[in-house]
C-alpha cells in the first residue's frame, strides 16, 4: 500500500516499540520480523499516529501488542475484514495486517482473497512457519505432505497451499516473498509493499523454533542460501548460485535451471518483469520450489493502475456529494408525502 506521506517527523525504531514484554519464545523468527517492521516504519515519513496494525490470532498475530501504534488484535482469520473496515473508514491511515499460515490461509483465506481482489491499499504480512504455533504444533495448510505433527501422527495427507499462487489466483496486485533470516531484504520488501498502491501481499518465511524448527533451513540457512535462493530484481536476469553461474531459462512454458557458461549466456535467461500485465510469469516463479528450483525471493508481481476499493468508494461518495450535501428533511419526506391539516 502507499499512503500520503506527511512531513518527516523524525521517528526512529524505538518510537515503535511498546513497553510491553514481547512474549514469543526465545529464538522465534517473529522477533526478527518485528525488528524489521520497526525499522521500516520510521523511514516511511508517515506520522506514528497514522499507523494501524491489525492481526488475527496466532503467535504471529500478537504482533500489534508490540507496536507502539494503533493496533487491533482481532479474532482468528478475520483480520482482513477489520483491516478493510479501518481503511474504508479512513483511507488516510497506513494499515498493516499481520497473519499466520493458519490464520491467513486456513480459517481466513476467504477474507484474504476478497481483500486481495478488492485491492485495498493495505500491507499484508503473512508469517509462514508451516505450523500452528500458538495451539502447540498441529500441521497447517502450508505444511508439506507427509508432515508428522500432533494432529497427523501418520503424516499429513493434504496438498499444501502455495501462498503466492493463492495470492496470484486472487489477482493480487502486489505479491512478494522474504525471509526472517534476511533483515535487509525484509526491510526492502516491506518498503516496496508500502510504496505500492493497492493490497501488498508479502509471504515471510518464519522459523518456529519450538514446533517446526528449521523448516526453511534447506533454503535459507547460511550454507544453502546462495544456491537455493533466487533474489529477484526488476529488469535483471534470473541468476543465482554462490558463483552467480546459474540461471533460469524458459523452454516453451516450462522454466529450467541452466548453468551459465557451456553455451548459455545471461541473455538466454528470463528477465525479471514483475510488472507484466498477465500473471503467467509470476505464476511460473511462484511454482519454482525446493529442491528442483531455487526459491525466489522479492517482488514477484506488481501491477500498477488498478484502482483501490476505498478510492473508488470515496469517489462515489464525493461525486454524490458534489452537488451538495443531502438534505435530511427532504430525504425523510420523500416524493409521496401528504399533509394533515390542523
Amino acid at each position, binding site marked *: 500500500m502507499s499512503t500520503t506521506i506527511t512531513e518527516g517527523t523524525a521517528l526512529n525504531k524505538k518510537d515503535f516499540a511498546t513497553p510491553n514484554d514481547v512474549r514469543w519464545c526465545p529464538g522465534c523468527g517473529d522477533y526478527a520480523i518485528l525488528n524489521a517492521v520497526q525499522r521500516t516504519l520510521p523511514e516511511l515519513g508517515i506520522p506514528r499516529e497514522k499507523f494501524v496494525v491489525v492481526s488475527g490470532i496466532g503467535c504471529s498475530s500478537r504482533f500489534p501488542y508490540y507496536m507502539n501504534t494503533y493496533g487491533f488484535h482481532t479474532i482468528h482469520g478475520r483480520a482482513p475484514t477489520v483491516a478493510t473496515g479501518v481503511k474504508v473508514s479512513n483511507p488516510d491511515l497506513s494499515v498493516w495486517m499481520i497473519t499466520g499460515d493458519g490464520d491467513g490461509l486456513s480459517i481466513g483465506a476467504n477474507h484474504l482473497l476478497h481483500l486481495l481482489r478488492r485491492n485495498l491499499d493495505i500491507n499484508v504480512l503473512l508469517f509462514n512457519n508451516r505450523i500452528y504455533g500458538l495451539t502447540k504444533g498441529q500441521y497447517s495448510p502450508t505444511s508439506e505432505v507427509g508432515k508428522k505433527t500432533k494432529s497427523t501422527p501418520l503424516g499429513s495427507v493434504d496438498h499444501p497451499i502455495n501462498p503466492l499462487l493463492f495470492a496470484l489466483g486472487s489477482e493480487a496486485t502486489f505479491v512478494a516473498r522474504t525471509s526472517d533470516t534476511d533483515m535487509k531484504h525484509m526491510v526492502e520488501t516491506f518498503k516496496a509493499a508500502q510504496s505500492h498502491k493497492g493490497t501488498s501481499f508479502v509471504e515471510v518465511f518464519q522459523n518456529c523454533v519450538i514446533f517446526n524448527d528449521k523448516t526453511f533451513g534447506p533454503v535459507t540457512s547460511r550454507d544453502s542460501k546462495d544456491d537455493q535462493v533466487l533474489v529477484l530484481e526488476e529488469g535483471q536476469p534470473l541468476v543465482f548460485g554462490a558463483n552467480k553461474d546459474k540461471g533460469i531459462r524458459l523452454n516453451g512454458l516450462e522454466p529450467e535451471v541452466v548453468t551459465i557458461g557451456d553455451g548459455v549466456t545471461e541473455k538466454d535467461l528470463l528477465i525479471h518483469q514483475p510488472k507484466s500485465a498477465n500473471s503467467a510469469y509470476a505464476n511460473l516463479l511462484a511454482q519454482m520450489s525446493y529442491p528442483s528450483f531455487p526459491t525466489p525471493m522479492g517482488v514477484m508481481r506488481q501491477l500498477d493502475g488498478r484502482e483501490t476499493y476505498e478510492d473508488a468508494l470515496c469517489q462515489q461518495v464525493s461525486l454524490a456529494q458534489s452537488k451538495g450535501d443531502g438534505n435530511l428533511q427532504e430525504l425523510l419526506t420523500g416524493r409521496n*408525502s401528504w399533509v394533515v391539516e390542523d
Partner: protein
Amino acid sequence: MIQPNDSFEEIESAVVRFAGDSGDGMQTVGERFTDSSAFAGNDIATLPDFPAEIRAPAGTLAGVSGFQLQFGSREILTPGDVPDALVVMNPAALKANIEDLPEGGMLVVNVDSFKKINLAKAGYDTNPLEDEEFRKKYHLIELDLTGLTKEALAETSLKPSDKARCKNFFALGFMYFVYGRPLEPTLKFFDDKWAKRLPELAEANSLALKAGYNLGDTLETARNRYQVSKVAAQPGVYRKISGNEALVYGLVVASKKANRDLLYSGYPITPASPVLEGLSQLKKYGVKSVQAEDEIAAMGVALGASFAGALSVCATSGPGMCLKSEFIGLASITELPLIICNVQRGGPSTGLPTKTEQSDLLQALFSRHGDCPLPVLAAHSPSDCFDCGMEAVRIALTYMTPVILLSDLYLANGSEPWRIPNVVDLPGIENSFANEDEEYVIYRRDPETLARTQAIPGQVGLEHRIGGLEKGEDGGVSYDPENHEEMTRLRADKIAGISKSFDPIEIRGESEGDLLVIGWGGTYGAISSAVGNLRDEGFSVSSVHLRYVNPLPDELGDVMSRFKKVIVPELNLGQLAMILRAKYLIDVISYGKVQGKPFKVSELREKFLEHVN
C-alpha cells in the same frame, strides 16, 4: 379525472387482498392501493406475502404471491385478520387464499385463467367457479381481465403479451372504483417510473387502470361501493413507510446527530437486503456502504470502521446472526460501538425465509460464548424502526457497546403512515471520545455510565492497542483472576445500567387488573387491537409493549405484580416468557405461534378471554 359516483356505503375500515402468480405484479398493485389509501387520508397497515422462489413455475401453488392491506378511518394497527375482498388472478391464487375469505366476502376472479391446465396446476379437479355452492357463498365478480385489458389497450403499440401483463392494473382500477380510491397517486407513479424510459408502458398502464375503474361504473355486480373516511390524525406531514425504510432513515439521521459518518456493511439476505440497498443509495448523505463477502466479514468491516471512528452498522437475518456471534464477542470485550440489526424470519436454519417470526430473541441475548450481555432492542411497528434505529445509536455511542436491534419480516416489508419528524427537533447524540489532553487509559470508565472513552486512529499521542484477550484497565493483556472477574462484572453492570436512561414504561390500559399482556416487536398492532377491543368491552386487560428486552425496564417487575395474570404472546415457543419468568419468578403464561404469520387479532382475543374472569 374520473369522479366517483356517490352511492357509497360508509364503513370504518376494510381489508383487501390481492393474490396471483409471482410474475403477476401483486406486490406492485398492493403497494399502489396502499399509497392511494394513504393519500385518501386513511390509516393503513400492510402485509406483503411472497414465496421464497423468485418465480416458481407459473400457475402453481408454490408461485402464489399475495398482498393484504387494511385501511380505515380509525386507528389501523394490523393488516387485518381476514379479507373483506379478495382479488385472485388464477386458480392457484384462489386455492391458496379462499379459505381466508369469509362467507359473503367479495371475490374478484380473473376468469380467463381458469383453464384446465391452470386448474390442474393448482390441484383442482373441477372448476370451483362452476360449483353452485361456491358461487353462492361469496359475492363473486368474474372478470375476463386479460380480454378486457387487451381490449382497453387495443389502440396502443404494445405487443399482445405485454398488453396482457397490464391486467394487474386493470384489476386495481376496478378495486379503486369499489372502494372509491383516488387514481392520482397511481398515475403519478406510472409517470415517475416509466414516463421517461418507457412512455408507452406508462400510458398503457394508465389506460388499463382507468378502464378497470370505468368498468366498475358499468358493471352490474359491482354496484355497492364503500366509502372510508379520513382518519383523525395529528396534523403534520405524512408519508407511507416500511420498516426497512424507516430503519435506514433512523440510522442516517442518527449518524448526523452524532456527527459520525455512517458505515454500513452487509451481505444480502432476505428480509434484510433492503437495508443494504437503501443505504447504498445514500452516498449523498456521506454513507459508505460495503457489500462484504459474508456476514462474518460484514461484521469485521463494521468493527474495523468503528475502531477507526465511524458509526458502524450491519443488518442481517437469523443465518447471518449465527455467523456474527464470534465477532459480537470481540465487539463486546473491546467495547466498541456498533449496531447489529436482525430482521428476523422463520427459522431454524434456512427455515421459512420469506415468512415472519420472532424466534431469534434468545439468540440475540445468548449467542456468544462467555458472559457477554448486550443491549437488545426491538422495534414494534414499521415507523418505530426509525425511532429504534436512533435509540440504538444513542445507546451504542453513549455506552460504548454493540447493540442488537431486532426487527422482523412483517415490520420490514409492511408499511404504515408516518408523521415525518422535524429533523432539527430530534435530540442530539453524544459521543464518548477520549480527552486528548489527558493520558489515555483505554478502559477507564465514566462513573455514571461505566462507558470507556474512545481514541480514534490518527489522533496524536493516543496510540493504543485493543483485542479479544482479557485485559486490565490500561488495555494490557491480563490473566489475573480477580481482574477477570472485575472486568466481567463491570461489563455486565454497564449493560444493566442502561435501563436508567429509559423512558418510563407505557401501559395501555389500567395500571392494575386481571390480565397484563406483555409483548415485544412486531406483535404490537395485533396485541394492542385485541387488548383495546377487550377493554372497550369492559374487560380488565392491559398491555405493555417492550422496546427494551435487555436490560429490561426497571419498573417492569412492579407493573407485572399488579396484575392477577400475565400473558406473553410471541411468534415463537415462549422466548421472552422464559426471560421474564427467570427474572421476576412470576408464572407468566406463554402463548406461542410459529406459523410464519403474524397473530390475528381474533386469536389473541380468544386467548386473552381464557384468562380473564
